[in-house]
């Protein structure tokens, strides 16, 4: 493999509305800026071209709501980005129209990640999502009609007021749409968000009652033939998908510790042992690139020991065993032995992996394994 990043992330911060639980870099509305922002992105891409490998494997457009971006600007962006085997775009259900689906298909997008979150109106309201359950279903059908054959659905569980029956219904509704891929996240009350302010206490109160939701999610989805290939991610098994490996290749790049280039406000890159984070503000980003300069960014050097720890913590999120060769220095051997005795880790000569129970406790187990 030649040097340079083979994975490109592009951040499109614009949204119609900021959901209460969101802590991503977002900008509401500003339709007049979309064109300029895309130009700035492309200018940044030109500045960073040297960081890229000759062959880019994946491109991922995240947000914000990438599909909220002005269609002309979005089309221009997609056309100018390097060609890749997997091109993913995140979409909010209410933005998916036949025109948009066609635009994406024609622009070479191979995979759409739909932010469904839930199918229960009362829960969507708590999350301040604008799409109705019908919008979600309609969006998926629209994408299918446009012959997009790799659709992922995002679901959130642990929403204030969500009963076990609500969760079962959400999973059943999602499965009924036969997505190739599912991402299921526990709702996090991130400090400082409006949501935490409004619902934080309630989340704490229900924490114990919802402790089993993660298990329910995994049981239901694996029972329906999905592969639990990463802590929060599931995909159809090859045997049910015409032999295709439907794991998200772009995200696998992160979990395998590959280099990636991030473009746009707040985007993060990790290239040759240095992580950099672009500053979040849209106006300053536009100004800098307007002058032909790179955006303001923070640099975080990643020394070898840090890289090893990251490889360990990322690698253990996957269902495939991790080679100990590259993470020896990051491993607390005594902890490894203790956790093996507890049936949470399986350790061979060269490989380690978490047992199913170990995966449910993956955060704590990994913390303990760190030297």
């Amino acid at each position, binding site marked *: 493999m030649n040097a340079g990043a083979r994975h490109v992330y592009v951040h499109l911060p614009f949204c119609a509305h900021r959901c209460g639980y969101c802590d991503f870099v977002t900008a509401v509305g500003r339709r007049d800026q979309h064109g300029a922002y895309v130009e700035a992105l492309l200018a940044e891409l030109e500045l960073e071209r040297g960081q890229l490998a000759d062959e880019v494997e994946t491109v991922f457009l995240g947000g914000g709501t990438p599909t909220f971006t002005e269609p002309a600007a979005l089309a221009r962006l997609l056309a100018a980005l390097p060609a890749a085997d997997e091109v993913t775009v995140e979409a909010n259900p209410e933005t998916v129209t036949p025109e948009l689906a066609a635009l994406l298909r024609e622009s070479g997008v191979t995979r759409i990640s739909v932010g469904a979150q839930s199918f229960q109106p009362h829960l969507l309201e708590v999350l301040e999502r604008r799409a109705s359950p019908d919008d979600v279903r309609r969006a998926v059908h629209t994408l299918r009609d446009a012959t997009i054959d790799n659709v992922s659905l995002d679901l959130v569980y642990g929403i204030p007021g969500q009963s076990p029956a609500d969760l079962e219904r959400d999973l059943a509704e999602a499965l009924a749409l036969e997505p190739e891929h599912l991402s299921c*996240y526990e709702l996090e009350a991130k400090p400082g968000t409006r949501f935490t302010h409004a619902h934080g206490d309630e989340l704490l109160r229900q924490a114990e009652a919802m402790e089993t939701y993660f298990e329910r999610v995994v049981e239901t989805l694996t029972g329906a033939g999905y592969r639990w290939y990463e802590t929060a991610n599931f995909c159809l098994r090859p045997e049910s998908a015409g032999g295709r490996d439907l794991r998200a290749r772009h995200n696998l790049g992160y979990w395998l510790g590959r280099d990636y280039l*991030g473009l746009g406000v707040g985007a993060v890159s990790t290239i040759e042992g240095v992580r950099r984070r672009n500053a979040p503000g849209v106006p300053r980003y536009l100004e800098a690139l307007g002058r032909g300069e790179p955006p303001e960014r923070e640099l975080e050097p990643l020394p070898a020991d840090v890289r090893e720890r990251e490889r360990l913590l990322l690698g253990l999120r996957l269902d495939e065993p991790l080679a100990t060769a590259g993470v020896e220095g990051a491993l607390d051997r005594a902890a490894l032995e203790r956790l093996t005795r507890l049936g949470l880790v399986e350790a061979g000569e060269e490989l380690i992996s978490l047992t199913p129970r170990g995966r*449910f406790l993956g955060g704590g187990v*990994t913390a303990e394994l760190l030297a």
Partner: protein
Amino acid sequence: MEQSRIRNFSIIAHIDHGKSTLADRILQLTDSVTDREMRDQLLDSMDLERERGITIKAQAVRVHWRGHELNLIDTPGHVDFTYEVSRSLQACEGALLVVDAAQGIEAQTLANAYLAIENNLEIVPVVNKIDLPSADPEGASAELADLIGDEPGRVLRISAKTGEGVADVLDAIIARIPAPAGDPAGPPRALVFDSSYDQYRGVIAFVRVVDGRFETGEPLRAMALGTRFDAEELGFMAPARRPVETLEAGEVGYVVTGLKEVSALRVGDTLTSERRPAAEPVPGYKDVKPMVFAGLFPTDSDTYPELRDALERLKLNDGSLFYEPETSQALGFGFRCGFLGLLHMEIVRERLEREFDLDLLATAPNVAYRVETRLGEWVEVHNPSEMPRELERVEEPYVTASIIVPKDYVGAIMELCNERRGRFDHLEYLSEERVHLTYELPLGEIVLDFYDQLKSRTRGYASFDYDFAGFREGALSRVDILVGGEPVDALSLIIHRDAAYERGKLLVERLKQEIPRQFFDVPIQAAIGARVIARETVKAKRKDVLSKCYGGDISRKRKLLEKQKKGKKRMKQIGGVEVPQEAFLAVLNLDQPKK
């Protein structure tokens, strides 16, 4: 000076009843200090004493009044130092018994007054603070006269604050207190009633010469311990050290011994001359033993050497402090410390934290137990975790507690004492309003929160004092607290069988709240021997994941896990369970008196 012109006396008073103010006023009136030198409460030299308004270490000061030499021997003001008080009193022929005109007699005054009467001291009753608007000099005088069997008319009424009546007090000392009556020509004998440590000169003994005469430079011997040394310097305090060539029968002064350890010279011992030794020591020497024990551990294990040094330095000035290294699996390296009583413990702990800037964890205090093993041997146990689980019998220390309360609270006191296994002994009315109760109580019931309870149940009106009354057999059990099946040494306790279940249940419930959930179920148990008397379970975690982790999150998630790991490293491992230090703290502080 002629013995007939010497008067030796001390002042007995409750905290805040004005002992120190009176002492200061006496120094001023006798021109012993200039106004410039005058600091309030000159006799209390330690900051802590000054702040808490109590006297910890006694000192002696010599003043002159109308052709007489008066020696004021200060006494420690608290029950824990009863033995030191009794030695100070033994060095005197009389005592001023000072009572606040608004408060009347308190339990502590009573205890020390009885001690003075037992020592055949002439008591000069004094009612102080007559300048206060709330003062009741009549009532206080009557109570006082009644207590010591004197005429109310002979009770002096003064205000140490304004100076009113203080000269009369000095006159009464000369008129009423007998002169010393030792044998000036006999073999020299001097009673050690206090000692202190000087960095450059070693141990300094404060003495009352009973018979004969001591000369500078002569070889001396402490009769009880057999310690030998030379009298490097003799002198008296006025209030600074004033060297003299000789100290004679009846006089009070100091001896610079050059000894490097306070423990080489005990309060109550008798000094005599090697050249002309006395046949018998002054009676009354006792080897005082610590009665209350607690483990002291540094919060930060790196400061262990500092704790050791600090204890060494405190010990130099406090012969009654006992300590030995202790290793606890829960709390790390520390010391098992022995104290004369609760206040002594609190003072030591506070001095360690304040003067030596140490952060300490203290285990719940316990008393000394005498245990007869199955083999018929008697051993003394200072630490619950060392109590044999198999034993024949246990004896625990009892005290005679003396409590004075307004009569409305008698019921509350009786209830409290009954809860604490007290045996009623005696009740008498000191006046129409105030009642004096005596109870026999196990010291172990007092060391926890008895004093706090006493204060809260009587709205602070009760005053309390106790005196050691000997060891008695008790139905005591050792209760162990087990986490993950393994006993936590620092949490073992010895408790009366009837209270074991309740206490065990409480500790286990509390600990359950403090131990974070682990990857497996953690049983928390209280057990007597192999019998579990209470149990709780910390249920295993079922889920502990970072739900989302993509390119932009990696640094933050890594830092989160690294922090988590650091937290885990700080925890103590007991039975494979990670227990945060706060958990021990919470349980240890379950009912420790609040400061």
